[in-house]
């Protein structure tokens, strides 16, 4: 699946009224310009509630305007995804000339990205499909178990995915049909703090693009 790289369209902005009026109010003892920043707050398109705001203050006689220096604008991707047109994550290859193997997961030993012989036929099966249909693409997603650092595991998962890609290329698949990505430890297949769960998470998944 081709990842989106375009810039997001700007959110709708709420424009601030002029701040000069505030400086004229007699209540302010200081002659300095007002505190709020010049940046306009941007309202997100989503209606998802934001985390709890600071303790509410009684409604003032005159409402204070301007951007609080503590303000953080929320970007909610879940709401935006729901509103956008649906795009399935892994379209199923329909009526392939050669049926792809149903097995799509290669498992790895701890701290290793070597492809064990048990999975050779699985990879060969997918290589045959891809070699015959050069318009078909695959994303190989590498994963690790939960032990260790997130960034280091992201890199380890990448090495696992790339090991599978290398094997496919050696079997005649064009590199441009393949992309290796990694989820590190972020997308476990099994929960649990023991070797049973860990062994099911040390994997590379082959997905149609």
């Amino acid at each position, binding site marked *: 699946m081709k990842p989106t790289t375009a810039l997001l369209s700007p959110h709708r902005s709420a424009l601030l009224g002029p701040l000069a009026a505030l400086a004229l109010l007699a209540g302010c003892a200081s002659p300095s310009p007002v505190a709020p920043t010049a940046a306009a707050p941007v309202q997100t398109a989503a209606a998802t509630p934001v985390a709890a705001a600071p303790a509410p203050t009684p409604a003032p006689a005159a409402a204070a305007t301007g951007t609080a220096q*503590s303000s953080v604008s929320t970007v909610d991707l879940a709401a935006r995804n729901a509103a956008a047109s649906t795009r399935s994550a892994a379209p199923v290859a329909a009526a392939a000339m050669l049926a792809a193997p149903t097995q799509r997961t290669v498992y790895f030993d701890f701290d290793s990205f070597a492809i064990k012989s048990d999975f050779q036929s699985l990879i060969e099966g997918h290589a045959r499909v891809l070699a015959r249909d050069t318009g078909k693409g695959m994303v190989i997603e590498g994963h690790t178990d939960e032990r260790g650092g997130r960034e280091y595991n992201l890199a380890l998962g990448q090495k696992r995915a790339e090991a599978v890609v290398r094997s496919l290329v050696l079997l005649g698949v064009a590199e441009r049909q393949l992309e290796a990505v*990694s989820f590190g430890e972020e997308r476990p297949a099994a929960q649990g703090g023991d070797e049973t769960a860990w062994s099911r998470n040390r994997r590379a998944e082959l997905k149609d693009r």
Partner: protein
Amino acid sequence: MRLVTGLAGVAAYNPGDVMHALPPPQHNHGPPAAWNRRHWLQASGAALALGPAAALAQLRVEITGVGATQIPVALAPFRDEPAIGTALSAIIKANLERSGAFRIIGVPPGLDERSTPDLPAFRGQGADALVAGSLTRLADGRIDVRMRLWDAVRGTDLLGQSNVVLPADLRLAAHRISDQIHEKLTGERGVFATRIAYVLRTGRRFTLHITDPDGEGGQIALASPEPIISPAWSPDGKRLAYVSFETQKAVVWVQDVATGARRVLADFRGSNSAPAWSPDGRRLVVTLSRDGPAQLHLINAEGGGAPQRLTTSGAIDTEAVWSADGAFVYFVSDRGGGPQVYRVAVGASGGGAVERITFQGDYNISPAISPDGRQLAYVSRQGGAFRLMLQELPGGTPLALTDTRDDESPSFAPNGRLIVYATRQPGGDVLMTTTLDGKIKTRLLSSGADMREPAWGPFGR
């Protein structure tokens, strides 16, 4: 005692702030009529009263070592706190206690910044300093937060401030006052007005949060159905870089905190991760796998231009952090077998000499460098446990700062005095802060969800 007396300059803040120093009190306001020594003795032993709007403390100060010299400070509730609805003095008290450098003595209401308190009486009750103040709502709806700090030992007025803020910034005003008190009495900048970013996972929902260092005032910068990792503050505190999996792979984004505007910084072939801002904010180091295994690359903060390779090993190089002077990038590499911390000199045309920094243990990751460049914090695997370590540079002996087993992601406060990190407790991950000697730790409680990836933001908001 380490009191810093005299009316030296206060900590610098943003030029747009409406803040000015208060002159010494003109009038001789006596203490409130009902306030007498007996009342004071009764009140000093009691906990400081919390206003009705005070957030119930979501943090617990756990002092595990022998208390270091703590400066005793008497703190009065600010006049009109309950009416305005924010218990400023409670926030200040919690801040000062959490730093481990202060012991707060409660004072009954009645004082404000215009008072002329009986300083010898406070000294007699064990206080070295006294803080009082007030909140006043202005006609435009903003709040004038005023405070005064007295030196009870020398009987002088140390500091007076007025800070006019929007109601939404009242917590920030309390944090700034805490910083001023901290700096005036210890000589060191406080970090109470800084912010910490972290990621929260609740089920299949990931949120990037920004919180005050007391765990309160949290706001969400990004909510996503896919993981978010490695948040990194720009040096001016206005932007966050992070890794998002929203497009089904690791991509580095940069987001403006106040406006929410965001753009992709790195989306090359494979995984893009571990963003680290240069001290001048103009470049980032990112980990890219576009040419094979993970390697460090330099990329312009504004985008544009090709990434410039910084490391050239055939191994995994990742988790870059810059030295404060921008001369070195510390990183993790497994070029020697297992992951260790190295550093590379940043030259005009990419990377220069590489030196190894960690030598003890076979798995050392997640480096963080103190602002003065003298301390390295990192996570070391010892047996099956992942433990936060601190090592003096160059060549010091590593010291374990915790006795927990699943520490991750250390990040220094900008004054170099505290480290925030994530660790695992029964019920979920939590964020902790620790002093550099490991003696004073505080826990930012979560609701049972997983909190991880803390990043301490810079000074100045």
